C-alpha cells in the first residue's frame, strides 16, 4: 500500500521534451559528422533468409499464440528488403479481468512490418514501417537507422530514431462493441545509439542507449485502481486509473559474448532502466550455446533475472478515491521480480545446400517465467479484508517453434 510519502508526479513539459529532442538530434548529428570521414571499402548486408515461427504464451490466466513470418532478400548487393507478419490470438481471464468482474475475452492483433536497407561503402541506412492493428488499439511506427563500420571493422556504431503514433479505443463491456465516443491518441519518440566492439579474437561487446518519450493516453482504459470503501474499511471499490500524460525513459544495456576454445559460446548482458514515473529496473542475463560436435544439433540455455521498483503513483490500495492526482494499480508498475529459464534446441538441415536453399534450421525454444510481486495483492478473494490478501505471483510457459531457411 502507498505509504503516503509517494512522490511528486510530474508530467514532462512539452517545451522540456522538445529541448531534449533537439539536444539528442544535435548529438546524433555530431556523431554522424565524427564518423563519416572514416568510411572506406564495403560493409555487409544481413543474409537472405526466411523464418516461420509459431509462438505460444500461457500464464496468469492468459493464453496468446499465433504465427510470425519474416523474409529478407538482398538485391544488387547494396539493397535489402524485409517483411514481417506477426499475429497474436489472445484469450484472457487475467487477474485484472477477474477483479474487475468481467468475463474472459478473446481478441486478435495483427502486425505488419516493412524494412528497407541501403548499403553505401561501410554505411548502412535503414528505414522501417510497422502497423499494428487490434479492435481497440492501433499503432503505427516509422524508424530510421544508420550503421557504420569503423577501424578495420572492429567497431560498428549505430544510431536510430523512431516515431510512433497510436490510437487507443475502448470496447463497451456491456454491449461488447467498440465505443465510438472514445478515441485517444498516443505519440511516441525513440532515440537510440549503440556501439559494438570486437575486443579480442574471441570476445565481442556491445553498448546500447535508448531514450523513449511518450505523450498522450498512456493508461489502459479497462484497468482500475482500488481504494478503501469509505463505508466499510475492510472492503474496496474500483475506479478507472489516472496516469500522467507523458513518460520519458532511459535504458542502457551492455552485452558480451565469448567464444570458448571447443566451439561453444557464453554470453551475458545487463540493462539499467529508469524513467520519469519513478520506475527503476535492472535486467541480468547469462547464457551458454553449445553445438554438439559432429552432429547437426545445437543446444542453448540461459537465465534471466529482472527486478524493478514501483512507479511513484502506483499503489495496491489507495486510502480514498481522490487520494492524489495520478493513481494506478497496473502490476507492471509495481515492485516485483521476474526470473526466466530458457532452453533451446536447433537442428540444422541441408548443410551443403539443396536447390535454392543454402542451409536451414528447425528450432524449438522453451521459456519458463516466474513473476513475484512485492506490493500487488491477489484481490480476487473478497472474503479477506482489503489490503491483507496474499501477494500475487504467477508462472508462465512460453514455446517457440520456428523454421529458418537461408537462400
Amino acid at each position, binding site marked *: 500500500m502507498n505509504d503516503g510519502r509517494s512522490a511528486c508526479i510530474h508530467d514532462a513539459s512539452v517545451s522540456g521534451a522538445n529541448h531534449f529532442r533537439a539536444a539528442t538530434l544535435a548529438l546524433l548529428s555530431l556523431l554522424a559528422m565524427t564518423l563519416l570521414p572514416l568510411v572506406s571499402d564495403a560493409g555487409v548486408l544481413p543474409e537472405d533468409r526466411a523464418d516461420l515461427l509459431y509462438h505460444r504464451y500461457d500464464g496468469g490466466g492468459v493464453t496468446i499464440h499465433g504465427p510470425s513470418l519474416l523474409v529478407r532478400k538482398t538485391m544488387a548487393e547494396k539493397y535489402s528488403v524485409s517483411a514481417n507478419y506477426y499475429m497474436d490470438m489472445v484469450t484472457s481471464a487475467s487477474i485484472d479481468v477477474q477483479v474487475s468482474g468481467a468475463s474472459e475475452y478473446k481478441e486478435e492483433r495483427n502486425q505488419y512490418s516493412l524494412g528497407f536497407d541501403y548499403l553505401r561503402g561501410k554505411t548502412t541506412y535503414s528505414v522501417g514501417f510497422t502497423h499494428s492493428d487490434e479492435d481497440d488499439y492501433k499503432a503505427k511506427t516509422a524508424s530510421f537507422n544508420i550503421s557504420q563500420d569503423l577501424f578495420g571493422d*572492429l567497431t560498428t556504431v549505430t544510431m536510430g530514431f523512431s516515431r510512433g503514433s497510436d490510437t487507443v479505443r475502448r470496447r463497451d463491456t456491456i454491449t461488447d462493441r467498440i465505443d465510438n465516443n472514445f478515441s485517444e491518441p498516443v505519440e511516441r519518440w525513440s532515440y537510440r545509439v549503440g556501439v559494438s566492439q570486437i575486443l579480442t579474437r574471441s570476445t565481442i561487446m556491445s553498448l546500447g542507449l535508448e531514450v523513449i518519450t511518450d505523450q498522450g493516453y498512456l493508461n489502459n482504459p479497462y484497468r482500475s485502481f482500488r481504494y478503501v470503501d469509505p463505508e466499510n474499511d475492510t472492503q474496496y471499490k474500483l475506479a478507472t486509473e489516472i496516469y500522467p500524460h507523458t513518460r520519458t525513459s532511459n535504458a542502457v544495456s551492455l552485452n558480451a559474448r565469448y567464444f570458448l576454445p571447443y566451439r561453444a559460446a557464453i554470453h551475458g548482458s545487463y540493462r539499467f532502466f529508469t524513467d520519469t514515473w519513478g520506475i527503476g529496473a535492472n535486467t541480468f542475463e547469462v547464457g551458454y550455446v553449445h553445438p554438439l560436435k559432429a552432429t547437426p544439433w545445437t543446444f542453448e540455455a540461459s537465465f534471466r533475472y529482472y527486478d524493478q521498483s514501483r512507479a511513484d503513483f502506483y499503489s495496491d490500495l489507495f486510502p480514498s478515491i481522490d487520494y492524489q492526482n495520478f493513481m494506478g494499480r497496473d502490476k507492471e508498475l509495481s515492485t516485483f521480480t521476474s526470473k526466466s529459464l530458457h532452453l533451446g534446441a536447433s537442428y540444422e538441415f541441408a548443410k551443403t545446400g539443396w536447390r535454392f536453399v543454402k542451409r536451414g534450421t528447425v528450432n524449438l525454444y522453451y521459456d519458463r517465467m516466474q513473476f513475484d510481486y512485492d506490493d500487488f495483492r491477489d484481490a480476487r478473494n473478497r472474503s479477506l479484508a482489503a489490503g491483507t490478501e496474499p501477494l500475487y505471483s504467477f508462472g508462465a510457459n512460453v514455446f517457440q517453434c*520456428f523454421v529458418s531457411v537461408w537462400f
Partner: protein
Amino acid sequence: MDTTGISQQSLPSSSSRQEVTFVSSPLPSWQRTRASGLVRCGAAALALFALSACGNIEPWVKPYERQALADPIMSFDPNPVSSAYIDHVYEAREGARGALGSSGGGCGCN
C-alpha cells in the same frame, strides 16, 4: 485533463488529497536525469571525436583472425524473428523498455 501535465499541488485542495512537498533541487528529477544522460552522451561523442582524429587505427584483430567471431553462435541476434517475439513478451509484462534492438507497436498485454 491537461495534457501538458499537472502536479499534485496544482489540484483543487481536498481534505483527503495527499499533499506533496517539492524538495530541494532547483531542477525536477526528470530534468536532472536527462541532464546527466546528456552529459554522458556528450562525453561519449567527444571520446569518439578524439578517436577519429587518430586517423587510420591498425586493427588489433586482423580479418583472418575473426573466424570464431564469424561463427553464427557468436551473433548478438542470431534469430531476429524469435528475439523480437520474446522482447515483446517481456515488454508487455515489465515496466522497463528499450535498448534491446527491436521496435514495434501494439500492446497485446491486457
